[in-house]
C-alpha cells in the first residue's frame, strides 16, 4: 500500500512536474476522515443518483452555461465565451484531483476552520472501496462519487464569473485568474461551509455522552469528545449557516467576484453608445433550459441520497424557478410593456440561484415565495440599479448570482422553519442516529445566514480584488482596443463562430 501510493504520487508528480511537491507534507496523510472503519456499504441507488447528478452539473456548465452566456454576447465574441467556460472546466478538473478536493474536504489541522490540508492530494488514500458520509446516519456513498460531484461544483463556479467581463478579457489572464481564484477563494469557501465530521461521528459521540450515564468524569470526557467532533467543521458550518447546495459558496462568491472584476477591468468600448444586442437568444434559451435541467443535479444531488428529501429538493428547484420566471416576466410586462424571452430565461436563473441554498430546507410554498421575490428583485437590479450605477457587468453576474444568492441565503433562514412548511434545521444529537428537526428561532437563524452572507461578500470580494490586481500586473487583464474591436474570437482564438 505504502509502495503503491508512493508510485502513484510519483506518477502524479511526473505528470505535473514540480507543482505542489513542496506543500504536501506526507506526515499530514491520515486515514480518510469521511469513512468509518467497519462502516456501512454504499447503496447502488444513492451511488447512481450522485453520479448522474454530477453529470447533470457538467451538463449545466457545458453546454448549458456556455450557451446561456454565449448567446448574449455579440457574434464576434461568441467563441471566446464558449472557450472560456469549456477550458475552465478542463483546468479546474485537473486541479481538483491534484489538491482541490484535499483542500476542501480534509482536515486542515490548525487552520481547519478555514481550509483543509494536503492529505488527499493527488487523491492519495482514495480507492473504490472508500466511502463518504451523507446527511443520514448509516448511509454512505463511494468517496469517488462524492469527489466527482463536488468537482463539478468547483468547475462551474469560476465559469459563472466570466460573464461579468465578457467581450474584453484576455484569455491567458482569465486562465491564470481562475487557477488562483479556485485555490485561494473557492476551496477555502467550500471547506468553511461544507466540511464537517458527518452524521455518524456526531451520533457516536452523542451516544457516548448518553452512555456515560451518571459517571461525571466519563460524561465530561464524552462531552468534550462530542464538542471536539462538532468543532471539526468549517467556520461557517460552525456558525450554523445553512447552505444546501451553494448559495454562499457558489453564487454569492462568484457574483461578487464578477462585480469586482468588471470594475477593475473597466467598461467595454462603446458601452452605452453602440447597440450590443444578444447575438442569439436561441442559444441563450437552450442554455437556460439546460441550466434548469442540470440544476436538479446541483440541488437534489446535494442531498447525496435518493430519498424523499432529494425529491423535495427537486420539487423546490422546479417551482422556485417557475415562480421566478413568472415574476420577472410579469414585472417586465408591466414595466416595459412586453414580456420577453430573455426576461423569462433570466427569471428562471434568478429563481434557480435563490432556491439553491434552500433546496432541501424549504417546503414547496416557501420555494415559490423565494422564487417570486428573486425574480422581481433581480429584474430591478439588472435594469434600474445597474443603469443607475453604470458599471458594465456584461451578463449580469452580480445582478443575478450575487443578488439572487443573497435573497436565497437570507430566505433560507426563514423558510426552513417547520411552521412555515420547511424541513427544519437538522439536529443529529438529540436522538442520535435519527435525523430530527431542531428547534427554530427566527433571529439566530437569520443572523447565522446574514453573517455567512457578509463573510462571503468580504472574503470573495476582497480576495478577488487582490487576485485581479495580481493578474493585471503579471499578464494584463484586458486585450488591446483593436483586438476588442475585431472581436475576441479572431483576435484571441483565430476562429469565427459562424460561416453560414
Amino acid at each position, binding site marked *: 500500500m505504502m509502495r503503491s501510493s508512493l508510485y502513484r504520487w510519483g506518477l502524479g508528480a511526473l505528470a505535473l512536474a514540480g507543482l505542489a511537491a513542496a506543500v504536501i507534507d506526507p506526515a499530514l496523510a491520515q486515514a480518510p476522515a469521511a469513512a468509518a472503519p467497519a462502516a456501512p456499504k454504499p447503496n447502488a441507488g444513492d451511488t447512481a443518483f450522485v453520479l448522474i447528478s454530477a453529470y447533470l452539473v457538467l451538463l449545466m456548465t457545458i453546454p448549458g452555461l456556455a450557451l446561456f452566456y454565449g448567446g448574449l454576447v455579440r457574434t464576434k465574441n461568441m467563441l471566446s465565451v464558449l472557450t472560456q467556460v469549456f477550458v475552465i472546466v478542463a483546468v479546474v478538473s485537473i486541479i481538483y484531483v491534484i489538491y482541490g478536493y484535499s483542500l476542501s474536504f480534509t482536515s486542515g489541522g490548525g487552520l481547519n476552520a478555514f481550509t483543509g490540508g494536503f492529505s488527499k492530494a493527488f487523491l492519495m488514500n482514495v480507492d473504490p472501496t472508500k466511502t463518504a458520509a451523507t446527511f443520514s446516519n448509516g448511509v454512505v456513498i463511494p468517496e469517488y462519487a462524492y469527489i466527482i460531484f463536488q468537482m463539478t461544483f468547483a468547475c462551474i463556479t469560476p465559469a459563472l464569473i466570466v460573464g461579468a467581463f465578457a467581450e474584453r478579457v484576455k484569455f491567458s489572464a482569465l486562465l491564470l485568474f481562475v487557477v488562483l481564484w479556485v485555490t485561494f477563494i473557492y476551496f477555502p469557501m467550500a471547506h468553511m461551509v461544507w466540511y464537517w465530521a458527518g452524521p455518524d461521528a456526531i451520533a457516536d459521540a452523542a451516544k457516548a455522552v448518553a452512555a456515560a450515564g451518571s459517571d461525571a468524569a466519563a460524561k465530561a470526557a464524552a462531552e468534550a469528545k462530542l464538542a471536539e467532533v462538532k468543532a471539526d467543521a468549517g467556520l461557517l458550518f460552525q456558525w450554523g449557516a445553512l447552505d444546501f447546495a451553494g448559495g454562499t459558496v457558489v453564487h454569492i462568491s462568484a457574483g461578487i467576484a464578477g462585480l469586482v472584476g468588471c470594475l477593475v477591468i473597466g467598461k467595454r468600448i462603446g458601452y452605452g453608445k453602440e447597440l450590443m444586442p444578444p447575438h442569439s437568444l436561441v442559444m441563450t434559451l437552450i442554455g437556460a433550459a439546460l441550466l434548469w435541467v442540470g440544476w436538479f443535479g446541483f440541488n437534489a444531488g446535494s442531498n447525496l441520497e435518493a430519498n424523499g428529501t432529494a425529491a423535495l429538493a427537486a420539487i423546490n428547484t422546479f417551482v422556485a424557478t417557475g415562480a421566478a420566471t413568472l415574476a420577472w416576466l410579469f414585472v417586465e410586462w408591466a414595466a416595459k410593456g412586453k414580456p420577453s424571452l*430573455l426576461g423569462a430565461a433570466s427569471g428562471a436563473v434568478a429563481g434557480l440561484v435563490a432556491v439553491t441554498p434552500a433546496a432541501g430546507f424549504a417546503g414547496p410554498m416557501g420555494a415559490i415565495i423565494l422564487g417570486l421575490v428573486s425574480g422581481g428583485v433581480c429584474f430591478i437590479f439588472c*435594469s434600474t440599479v445597474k443603469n443607475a450605477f453604470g458599471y458594465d457587468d456584461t451578463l449580469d453576474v452580480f445582478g443575478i448570482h450575487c443578488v439572487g444568492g443573497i435573497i436565497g441565503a437570507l430566505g433560507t433562514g426563514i423558510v426552513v422553519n417547520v411552521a412555515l412548511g420547511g424541513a427544519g434545521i437538522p439536529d443529529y444529537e438529540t436522538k442520535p442516529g435519527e435525523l430530527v428537526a431542531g428547534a427554530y428561532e427566527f433571529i439566530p437563524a437569520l443572523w447565522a445566514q446574514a453573517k455567512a452572507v457578509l463573510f462571503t461578500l468580504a472574503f470573495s470580494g476582497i480576495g478577488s480584488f487582490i487576485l485581479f490586481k495580481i493578474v493585471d500586473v503579471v499578464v494584463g487583464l484586458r486585450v488591446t482596443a483593436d483586438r476588442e474591436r475585431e472581436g475576441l474570437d479572431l483576435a484571441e482564438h483565430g476562429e469565427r463562430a459562424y460561416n453560414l
Partner: protein
Amino acid sequence: MKIVMAIIKPFKLEEVRDALTGIGVHGLTVTEVKGYGRQKGHTEIYRGAEYAVSFLPKLKIEVAVAGPDVDKVVAAIAGAAKTGQIGDGKIFVTSIEHAVRIRTGETDVDAL
C-alpha cells in the same frame, strides 16, 4: 440599357417577380438590405437595455433592361410593390454602358 434598382418590402418579392415575368422580364438579382427612412422602426429591450432600431429589413432588386422597356418595368415594380403604407420603398434608374453574359460572351442587349 438601364439598371432599375428598387427597394421593396420583403414580403412583396413574389408579387414583383410575377409582375416582371408578366411583362417578359426573366432575370433579376435580389439583395437583402436594411433601410432607413420615414418608416419608424421599433424598440428592442434586452434586460433593461433599450435599443431603438431604425433600420428595417428591405430587399433590393436590380433588373437590367433595354432602354425602351424601362418605363414598363418601373411601372410593373411600382404596381406590385405598393401597399400604400409608409416604407414601401423607392425605385432608381441608372444607365449602364455595357453588359456581358459570362457563359456565352454575348454583349449588351443580347446579354440581358
